[in-house]
């Protein structure tokens, strides 16, 4: 470990300088590292040591900063992605699991899993702006494209909590199926999608009324229904297709986001969790927690191209173009 960090501190700046290559950064929950995948070669170029139990990861708008939820360090770490150096920790509340960066590029909304609160942090002043009481085990975090609404989902309370970002108060609570994990707003259709891991569904809400518009269900031949557990998902830029990670069923579903029909399933590594697109959206990288690898999916042909070995329990993924 000491030798590794020594090696990293010497070698990293040298390696990082010419590396303007497009990369996917993957947090390894049980290794306290980030694995960096070069999108051109589909190889891991380097590990970066971070705080304990890294999970959520997101870049600032200009990619000059990367934010990492170091859950067991009770901190959100801010890293210079060029050097791999931790610049400072943000006060995050206890056990930050997942977060979303507000479109203002300044405020992080953080789900504190062990504490049943959502913490709002100003990344410039490095202060906590607000703490909002939500349900038990908050996890999924979504922000509306106009930045007016943030949604926290709580895994044990089984709800989406709608937060008005002007007041940082909850203005609505909507029931979803068991163990909601991930939330995303659409830009074009003004919808909120929420995945429910144990319920096995994705709920689609009209963001204007908070009313439920649709519920997407999945069925994979030869796989028991109780193993089909939706977690992370991403939309194509035209928002016509959503890719939904289905956990221990080891598949990603391809969902038509206009008709809500499932068009197919792509086999991945074991316990597929979260994902990130390449810059041109031609490739999709999924984290597979149990097999400790990343599946690279060719978006056009909807098929898996390659598995890339990363650290133990890969969790989050983010693009650095």
């Amino acid at each position, binding site marked *: 470990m000491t030798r590794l960090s020594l090696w990293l501190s010497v070698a990293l700046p040298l390696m990082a300088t010419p590396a303007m290559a497009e990369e996917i950064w993957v947090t390894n929950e049980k290794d306290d590292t980030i694995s960096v995948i070069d999108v051109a070669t589909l190889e891991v170029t380097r590990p970066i040591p971070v705080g304990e139990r890294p999970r959520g990861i997101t870049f600032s708008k200009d990619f000059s900063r990367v934010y990492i939820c170091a859950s067991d360090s009770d901190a959100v770490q801010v890293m210079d992605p060029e050097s791999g150096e931790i610049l400072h920790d943000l006060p995050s509340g206890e056990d930050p699991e997942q977060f979303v960066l507000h479109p203002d590029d300044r405020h992080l909304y953080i789900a504190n899993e*062990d504490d049943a609160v959502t913490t709002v942090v100003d990344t410039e002043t490095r202060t906590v702006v607000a703490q909002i*009481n939500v*349900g038990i085990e908050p996890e999924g975090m979504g922000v509306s494209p106009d930045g007016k609404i943030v949604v926290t989902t709580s*895994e044990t309370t089984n*709800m989406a909590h709608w937060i008005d970002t002007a007041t940082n108060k909850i203005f609505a609570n909507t029931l979803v199926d068991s163990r909601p994990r991930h939330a995303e707003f659409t830009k074009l259709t003004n919808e909120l999608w929420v995945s429910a891991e*144990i*319920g096995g569904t994705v709920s689609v809400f009209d963001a204007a009324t908070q009313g439920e518009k649709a519920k997407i269900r999945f069925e994979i031949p030869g796989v028991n229904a109780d193993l089909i557990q939706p977690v992370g998902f991403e939309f194509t830029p035209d928002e016509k297709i959503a890719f939904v990670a289905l956990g221990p069923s080891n598949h990603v579903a391809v969902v038509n986001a206009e008709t809500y029909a499932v068009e197919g399933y792509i086999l991945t590594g074991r316990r597929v969790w979260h994902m990130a697109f390449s810059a041109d959206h031609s490739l999709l990288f999924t984290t597979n927690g149990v097999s400790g690898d990343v599946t690279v999916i060719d978006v056009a042909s909807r098929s898996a191209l390659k598995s890339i070995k990363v650290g133990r329990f890969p969790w989050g993924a983010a693009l650095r173009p």
Partner: protein
Amino acid sequence: MRKLCAAAVRLAPAIAVALAAAPSLAADLPIAIAYLRAEVDHPPVLSNLDPIPEDLGFAGAEIALEDTRTTGQFLGHAYSLTLVSVAPGGDLAAGAREALAAAQLVLVEGDAAQILAVTDMPEARGALFFNVASGAANLRSADCRANLLHTLPEDAARADALMQVLLDKQWTDLAMITGPKPEDAAFAATLRASATKFGMEIAAEKAWTFDTDLRESTMQEVPRFTQDLPDHDVLLIADPTDDFGRYVLHNTWSPRPVAGTEGMRPEAWAPVIEAWGAVQLQNRFEDHAGRNMRSRDYAAWAAVRAIGEAVTRTGSADPATLRTYMLGPDFTLDGFKGRALSFRTWNGQLRQPIAVVNDRALVTLAPLPAFLHQRNEMDSLGLDQPESACTEFAR
């Protein structure tokens, strides 16, 4: 707890908005739950290293109540929990009447005969009971009751989980030591039946007959006691009251692993479960109870969570409505064991994975992938539909 109360106060405006947005939900629907406990005088055991916690079971109901109340706050559902504890040899019927006066949703802790005595009372007809303490097979078969669901897995399901692991590892030559108590013999019979179910046989058995304090002579006595067993892959221990098993481990004549109630054990819940979000539940439980969560705690937790889930989805506190929903196809419970839990429609048993553990780690979670089932792989554990003689359920 303090944090939760604060949360409740501060959430009040949010609730009002939610309710205004959903007028179909009745405000402040009360959901009363009772926990009826038939206390027992635990028999003396050789070691006092692991005392049985006084709040075993009930602490699980309490933590589930806190979890469930958060959803209830947002929906206008007010949950309450009443403990009625009847002293050993006390008037259980009077206790049951007290519990039923407080609530029609009752978690019940006792042995099979005590549970049946309660569920068969005339006052109990419209109530819904949850067995959180007895793994007896008869409650899930010939002696099942329509008003009784089970959140603790039956002993046979635990035995099946262990046998799946042994078969998967090809550790199929088995020997067994059984204690002198009736419950020891019952668990030994369950292990025997389960071995047969999976095509194995317990080739040799010995009865534990020591009546001396072995604690300072285990290394002399136990090797001699196990020396005449024929060669085996695994030594099973049937000692459900935790009397002597701990002194067999690492004291056997042959260097063989120990399993059953000691060593590698099948459990509904254990502190070593950490995946599937379980760490969060373990943390909440430890903060609340100041100790690790055990199987009976888990069964009580699951019962209250099942009630909460059914109330949340139906908006009703009526036992019959809740029972129908729980036994229906839409009911799923997040049990922190990686699969959605549901109730078996033929006997009211909560279908759930079984953790096969040692003191330090999860060995694996059964059902194992090789054991397939036409309906649900979890039904490879315990009494499957054709094996249950229960006729009280519509099926």
